[in-house]
């Protein structure tokens, strides 16, 4: 089912948690809402779920206005971050409960499913999630991963039209998290239902999502596939947020057809980049590049025309297994540089780096990407 959000705003006293968001979640997609903590992503999800009423704006499922409908009438499923199971019910009762809740009739309601039907379905789900041996346990006797599995099973059994996940894996330890990720991906392939998944963990987002909406301070920064967000960030925030290391930035000034550092030194840049800047008339901005695409300058090879050469100083080095994470200092700002060479780096040594122009992103002083 396609979800459409129109100008959703949710305001808490002074602060706008969600600020005028327009968004379309396609049918059957696995959409991840990604953002730092406090960015309003959970608020957005709860508005979709019908647990929060937006200050303004509308929520549509397909073409039906759902804004005024409460959560219990939207036929959705939601898995929460924690406290997902009812502590006074066993695993089996927990899974049965949603089916027992489905009722028909306007005035005199009766259960849709008979007890036998429910038992059969519960059996199937228990088998699917490998929870047979836990059926008579109480939630407090289960591990975190098992609890979330039961919670997911409880939602799957109802065959809802939309799945919502609110950071379901953040309270589970790291090893299990990977396993659970696989579970969720497989489930989505099986059910093919529209899924909205909220997380602050970008690796989770990259691994699961077919579509990622990056949110910051209540506003959508960029929507796109994981690759788009990584390779083609449209603003500085996305560039900084996505990736194992935040993108490196070097501020520049543009005058008289040349590019200069802040201290007035000229930067030798490839012509295509210079063209972009001059056509867009950017006078001030940043050059960005990812730590993974930095190469160490080899004095034996001449500098390519497509490369930028930057002279830096090593400020700090860190060795994680086979990887060197080197903090460089250029003028006043820090740059990160990741390499797998076996060479030893020493502090306060000078180091020159080169970046290919394909991996260079230019942003104007408002943080927007400048491109053709």
């Amino acid at each position, binding site marked *: 089912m396609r979800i459409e959000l129109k100008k959703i705003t949710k305001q808490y006293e002074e602060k706008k948690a969600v600020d005028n968001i327009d968004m379309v979640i396609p049918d059957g997609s696995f959409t991840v809402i990604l953002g730092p903590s406090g960015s309003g992503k959970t608020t957005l999800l709860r508005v979709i*779920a*019908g647990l*929060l*009423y937006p200050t303004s704006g509308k929520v549509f499922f397909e073409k039906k206005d759902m804004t005024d409908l409460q959560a219990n009438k939207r036929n959705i499923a939601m898995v929460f971050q924690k406290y997902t199971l009812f*502590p006074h019910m066993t695993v089996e009762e927990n899974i049965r*409960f949603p089916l027992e*809740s*489905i009722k028909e009739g306007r005035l005199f309601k009766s259960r849709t499913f008979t007890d036998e039907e429910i038992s059969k379905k519960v059996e199937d789900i228990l088998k699917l999630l490998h929870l047979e041996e836990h059926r008579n346990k109480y939630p407090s006797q289960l591990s975190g991963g098992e609890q979330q599995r039961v919670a997911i099973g409880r939602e799957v059994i*109802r065959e809802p039209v939309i799945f919502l996940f609110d950071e379901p894996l953040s309270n589970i330890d790291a090893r299990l998290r990977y396993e659970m990720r696989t579970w969720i991906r497989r489930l989505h392939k099986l059910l093919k239902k529209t899924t909205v998944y909220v997380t602050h963990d970008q690796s989770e987002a990259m691994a699961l999502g077919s579509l990622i909406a990056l949110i910051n301070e209540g506003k959508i920064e960029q929507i796109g596939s994981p690759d788009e967000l990584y390779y083609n960030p449209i603003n500085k925030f996305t560039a900084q947020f996505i990736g194992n290391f935040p993108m490196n930035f070097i501020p520049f000034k543009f005058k008289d057809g040349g590019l200069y550092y802040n201290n007035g030194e000229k930067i030798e840049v490839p012509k295509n980049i210079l063209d972009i800047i001059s056509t867009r008339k950017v006078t001030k901005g940043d050059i960005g590049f990812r730590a993974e695409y930095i190469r160490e300058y080899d004095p034996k090879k001449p500098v390519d025309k497509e490369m930028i050469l930057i002279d830096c100083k090593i400020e700090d080095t860190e060795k994680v297994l086979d990887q060197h994470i080197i903090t460089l200092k250029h003028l006043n700002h820090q740059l990160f540089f990741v390499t797998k060479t076996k060479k030893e780096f020493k502090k306060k040594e000078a180091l020159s780096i080169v970046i290919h122009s394909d991996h260079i992103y230019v942003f104007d002083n408002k943080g927007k990407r400048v491109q053709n």
Partner: protein
Amino acid sequence: MRKVKRKTALYCLAILFIFFSLSFFQGINDSLSLVSAQSEEAEVIEIHDRSIILNWTIPSIQNFNSFRISLLSNQSEEESTWTMILLNNTIEVSTNSFSLVNYSTSDALNSAQKIHTSNFTSYVIENTAETVQTEINGLEPSTNYTVNLYLSNSSLFVDNESQVLFLLNEEFYWNSTIIETKISSEDTFEYSRRATVLSLLFIVVIFIVIFYIFARKDVPFNRIAYLFIFPALFALVLLEIYPIIYGVILSFTSYNLTRGEIPKFNWLQNYANVAENPQLPIAFTTTLVWTSLIIIAKILLGFLIAYLIHFKVKRKKLWYLFLYLPWAIPSYIKILSWRTFIQGNAGDSFFNMLFGTNVNLVSQPYIALIIACFVEVWDSIPLIATLFLGGMSSIPRELNDLAEIDQIGEGTRIRKIIVPLIKPIIIPAIILEIIKTFGSFNVAFFLTKGYPILSYGTSEAGVIGATDLFSTFTFYMFYHKREVGIAAAYSTIMSLLTLFFVLIWIKMSRGTQSTYQPTTRKPPSRTKKFLPVLVGLQALGYIIAGIFGFRYFGIHYNIHLNYIIGSLYFLISILLFFHSEKIYSWLKLLIIIDLVISVSQFFALQMWFAFNWNIFIVIFELFILSGIKKNPAGQTENSFLRVMKKKIQSFKFKISDSLKLIDRHLVDLQSLHGVFSLQTLTLLLFNIILKNKNWIMWTVFAISFACLVISFFSKIILKTSVIIQIPLLLGLVFSASPIGWTIGLVIFSIAFIINYAKVGATQNALLTKNTFVNRILRLVSIPNNSSLLLLLIIIISFIPIWNIVWIAFAPGNQIVPTSFIPTNPTLDNFRFLFTQEEIHLNFGNSLLIALGSAGICVLITTLAGYSFSRFNFTAKKELMVGVFVLKIFTGILTLIPFYLIMFNLGLIDTYIGVILAYSTHTIPIALWIIKGYIDSIPRELDEASQIMGNPTLRTIRKIILPLSGPAIAITFLLNFLAAWNGFLLAFVLLQSSSKYTLPIKLFTFIGSIEASTPEWGLFAAASILVIIPLLIIFVFLRNYLLKGFDSTKEIGEI
């Protein structure tokens, strides 16, 4: 700004003008409606609904022998003769028989003889009669009548055994103005019933409309929340807010339950009535003295107990349990058992027997007041100790350990660490406690019922006693005098006073935050600008009091004192305008002097109306003064004060130096000396109170005192003072002292010896090095003074209970125990309870009412608690605070209107009325407990259930109810106990003895203090029956029950 002010002033003036003119018109109307006799000879005395009472003097003209009374009504045009009154000289004089016509001769009041004639109803009176009074009856209600009185000559003929009266001639003597008979009492009832129903409907409709508007305005998701809080709010509006409004309106009417008349709106007449009678200042003074004495005692004792339990003794939980056990006993039983213990049968009590004293609560004002205070303190000490314990347990352990490591002395630790840290938590609770004490009813009602009566408190309006508080006096005006309007005026005045404290409380609990949170800086308050005005008001009050002898203001020692203090206030108020900073300390000094003089009047002049109403201005001033930040030290103070301070400080140093000198002799001996001094003091008191003329006791006292003095300087004397314990006890035995003093001194002796042993155990030098002796010493010195003190407190609270148990099993109706266990114990009292008194019926009544009220309370508070916890609707915080504030106004303040509403709705003497009355009693506390508990249940659970498609009610039933079981159980229990132990409302609302609840039944056994034949045995046995189930519940559920106490603290966090 200035324009606005001028406008408001104009409005005020306009309103005042309208008000005065209205009351003026009212006055004119009143004078019109008054019936005045045309001639002086005859007078209409009373007008009722179906009768008029007429009074006239017999004229001295001799040419007539009878009166004819005729009536002219507006319904029939003809004049009809009501009766003939014949003058005769030979009739039998009867004084007692009932007659409509009465006459008075020069020496006696007689009733006329009725004779039967065929044409007129006739009465015969004596020739010598001077005045005649007739009650003209058989009239129609609310019709106009004119009464005509004729002098006539008539003769009586006897014809065929029937008598006929012939009128010969007659002469018009007197006629009345048009008299309108009153509306009939059935109509009155109908009228007020209709008024109540209409106003109730009005309030309900208004409430629902407002509620609906709010609900419509809010977001759609919150509408269900409004549905859920509706029952609770509706109940509060109907049963709390409406009575409050009704009560205020009643205070402006002439409502009276004995006179059958339509209550009239008489503006401020009730207040004028209250103001011109002496009872108001007396009640105010008593309440004020009562409140301040009790609060001071509660704070000191509560702090002491909490400190001892928290810091000083081992096995805290056990002490805690024993401290709380008395709490499980309903307070009416506790208070009545104290009365049994202290007062007994008019002074013939266990207490007087124990201590040989002559205490009688009916005749000794000061003693009665002080004992009432004592009982109140003892009644509520567990609660206040809990508050302090809560505060103390919030102090981080580290701070306490740090103080210990840094070797900070105990006094310093209390002053500099404990008190400042618990202050923000305690102060709002203390103010709540003040409000509670201010409105307390139980002790003054059950223990003394206002007695002893004060001679200057008696007037036409009523009688007031030395222990009559605002609440009990209001109750007296309402229940005994049936003056609803005046009682309502009293209760309105009382609510205004309460409101004053409530406002302070709200301000304080908003202002205080936990010490551990960073506080936001407040802007400097501008309230100090009010200060000169307030002080000026005080000056004005005092000077007016000096000139006119105004009762509510001023000092009664001497008129000149009024002028002096008034002018001082005036001076300060002027000085405050100019250089305010320097004068604050002087103002404080003056206030303190003023207060001391005011208070001293109460004790020195025995004046129960000695208090000034300026106490409220003083509280305001102190409030403002405490808000003003002190300037850097010494800068602004004037030189005189600085010099004084320096002198005081140097004096302090001198004293502490000399104390240090003594201290060197006293290492580890403080407690020893303390106990010894207490012992000597008790001896002295014993001798003074009993007016002991026995030389033995005075000698023993002299020896002890001498030993005490010398022992400060010599350890040998201290050692020998152990030996002195022997002659001391011997002396007590030989002087045949009452047993209470002997026990007291024995306890002190034991404490002394224990302390001595402790010193011996630690400082071996004091005694021999014999290991056996040392071992015994160590064994003896195990109990420490703290636990002894706690033990003493617990024992004192158990004495009256033991007294009750003794009475219950003793045969007959004796109340003074003669042995520890009654000789020939019987179960007669218990048997009587079930056979004669049928107390099981009362158990049933209580159970029904308590279950019903608790059921309603839990049902509506669970729903409301859920929506208060989960939804974020408009004015949520304000509603919570409002609900809590409402609780403060319930009780005696809503009693009168509540009674009338129930009366008008025909719910008097029904179970439903009482159930409704008690169901809202614990709603605020229940709401806090349930809300707090649901807050602790993760939101995700009911959101998950909601997402599964469950409606909210099913979510509550399936998820919230099973998970919040303990909270619901506790709220159920709290309301159950409130209804089970509740006295006042049930006492007023239930009238037939078959419907009495247990408290009323128990009260009827012994009645109030002046009752002549108390059934002590039955009362004691019934008390035991009531207490035992409560004790069982308490012991099992104490942890849950005590949570109810804590909820008062949370209000500070909103």
